[in-house]
């Protein structure tokens, strides 16, 4: 019981929660204070109940079940059953010795850090550009978010069209400006497929960085940058010594979210390369799908899922810490 509810024991039976307690006009009857407070707390719980139920059902249950699966010897026949025979660490042993899995893990790191690096640089440059005044800047700012809104799978398919060896716009542009002498087989070459996925992912991720960094830069007080300008700081100095330190919290959170979003990428790869050729563009996500849903080794897929989950959740303490204002807001608000 909450300390504020000390009077609870002395108070008579509280009104049924279904019957709204009317404000009392006389001092006849018990004081409404306690029952009203309890009623409010109950209402709060009822408002929250669907969300709690959903979180338990759609997040906690699958995560726990995934953990269980990773220790089971599964087969297509066990899918219909609640549990399969215990397998110990066999699934984990398998995935850590399987060359394709190792490759998928390495690809995931290359893909994630490659994407973040270019997305951040390009996104920051565009944020600075759109932060200045020029003809058409408002229209440009609203159009730059287009890649963000498209279904990821469709983006993958779109780039597959652009990167075709014959009749693909990319090769045609490269040959027209003399950067390629013949058609490059982007999607069927094991050396290039992952690059293709990387390029597509950079394209779709830049707007996220641009939008968030742009709004952070807009929040930098102009007096500060003006003062620096008067003191003789050039544009580069103003950027590195004034703007970046001020927006550093946003940079941190944007990079962190960028990391967790990129580690999860799935639809794009399936639409673009399907993980091929010869598994050369498999990421953890796509290879896990392949293990579970194409080879029906759900146990191995689940084990790989846990590797991915650890990778993503490593960030969660940092994320919670960076979001501490939002968490703290919970105790400061209300009454």
């Amino acid at each position, binding site marked *: 019981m909450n300390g504020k509810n000390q009077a609870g024991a002395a108070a008579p039976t509280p009104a049924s929660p279904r019957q*709204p307690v009317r404000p009392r006009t006389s001092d006849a009857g018990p004081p409404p204070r306690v029952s009203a407070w309890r009623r*409010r*707390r109950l209402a*709060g*719980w009822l*408002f*929250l109940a*669907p*969300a*709690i139920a*959903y*979180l338990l059902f*759609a*997040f906690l249950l*699958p*995560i726990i*079940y995934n953990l269980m699966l990773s220790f089971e010897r599964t087969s297509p026949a066990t*899918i219909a059953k609640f549990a399969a025979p215990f397998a110990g660490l066999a699934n984990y042993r398998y995935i850590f010795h399987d060359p394709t899995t190792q490759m998928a893990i390495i690809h995931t790191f290359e893909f994630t850090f490659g994407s973040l690096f270019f997305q951040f640089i390009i996104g920051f440059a565009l944020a600075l*550009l759109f932060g200045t005044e*020029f003809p058409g*800047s408002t229209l*440009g700012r*609203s*159009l*730059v978010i*287009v*890649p963000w809104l*498209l279904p990821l799978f*469709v*983006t993958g*398919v*779109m780039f*597959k*069209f*652009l990167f075709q060896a014959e*009749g693909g*716009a990319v090769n*045609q542009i490269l040959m027209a400006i003399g950067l390629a002498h013949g058609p490059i087989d982007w999607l069927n070459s094991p050396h290039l497929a992952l690059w293709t996925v990387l390029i597509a992912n950079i394209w779709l991720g*830049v707007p*996220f960085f641009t939008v968030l960094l742009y709004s952070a830069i807009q929040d930098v007080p102009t007096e500060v940058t003006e003062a620096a300008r008067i003191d003789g700081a050039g544009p580069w100095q103003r950027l590195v010594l004034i703007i970046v330190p001020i927006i550093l919290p*946003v940079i941190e*959170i944007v990079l962190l979210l960028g990391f967790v979003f990129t*580690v*999860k990428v*799935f639809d794009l790869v*399936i*639409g673009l390369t399907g993980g091929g050729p010869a598994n050369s563009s498999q990421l953890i996500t796509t290879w*896990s799908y392949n293990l*579970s*849903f194409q080879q029906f080794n759900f146990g191995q897929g*689940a084990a790989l*899922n846990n590797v*991915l*989950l650890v990778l993503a959740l490593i960030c969660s303490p940092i*994320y919670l810490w960076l979001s501490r204002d*939002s*968490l703290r*807001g919970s*105790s400061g608000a*209300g009454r």
Partner: protein
Amino acid sequence: MTRRQQRRVGRWLRALVAAAALVVVLFPVYAILVGSFESTETLFSGTFYWLPHAATLENYVTVIRAQSGNVVTSLFVALGTALLALVVAVPAAYALSKYRLRVTIVIVSSLLIAQIVPSIVLATSLFIIFHWIHLVNTFVGLVLADGTYAIPFAILVLRAFFFSLPNELMDAARVDGASEWTTFRRIVIPLARSAVITVAVFAFLNGWGDFIFALTILNGAGIVPITLGIYTYLGNYSTDWGAVMAASAFALVPAGVMLVVAQRYIASGLTAGSVKG
């Protein structure tokens, strides 16, 4: 050059750079549209034409014949996801911002972490869980799974918004004898309209664009959203690019509509969701 001329040249130079960037941003979408109007012969000619070469509507005819049911399915999935997100998220966000419940910090932390969990982890387990409870290949199952994109985001965005509502409004309603539910329905929801629309728009786009849950939880027969419809076109050895591009053009429509109609809500959602969340 005078200072002023320099500044003017600078402005136009920046406009030029921005225009170049926008060409890169918009070209892939443009290419889909061009491709969707090309004949099969043109698409297999080995040349990409910058403008439709002998434009035809045959791809759209093919796609409307084969995929219009799937477009309707996607529409229902998107609406279902938006509805589920609102039903779960609006009251929860209200409780998490205006009621001092002890679980608040636990729930908010869980929501932040839930946003991080990769969909493939959920999809693998949900597929088997749905097997037991007979939700595989059902509309309800798909919408429940699609809610995993939308609900944590929706609660966090709405909660940030509810903080901005003064407590006095709710107190005044209570003093007038309104129940908690009436206060929520008559006072809080109308005031939160813009945030609710923002959240609904994003949930709609999430449901519309979902691919991974459609791929895992549906079996490709019966309920087929448009993304899955496009995927089946790719499965063959020779891709019918005309049909793929026309179907993709359909899949891009909601994003385009939202960009024009709900621009304001999209802009606020994009920034609110990630930083203030």
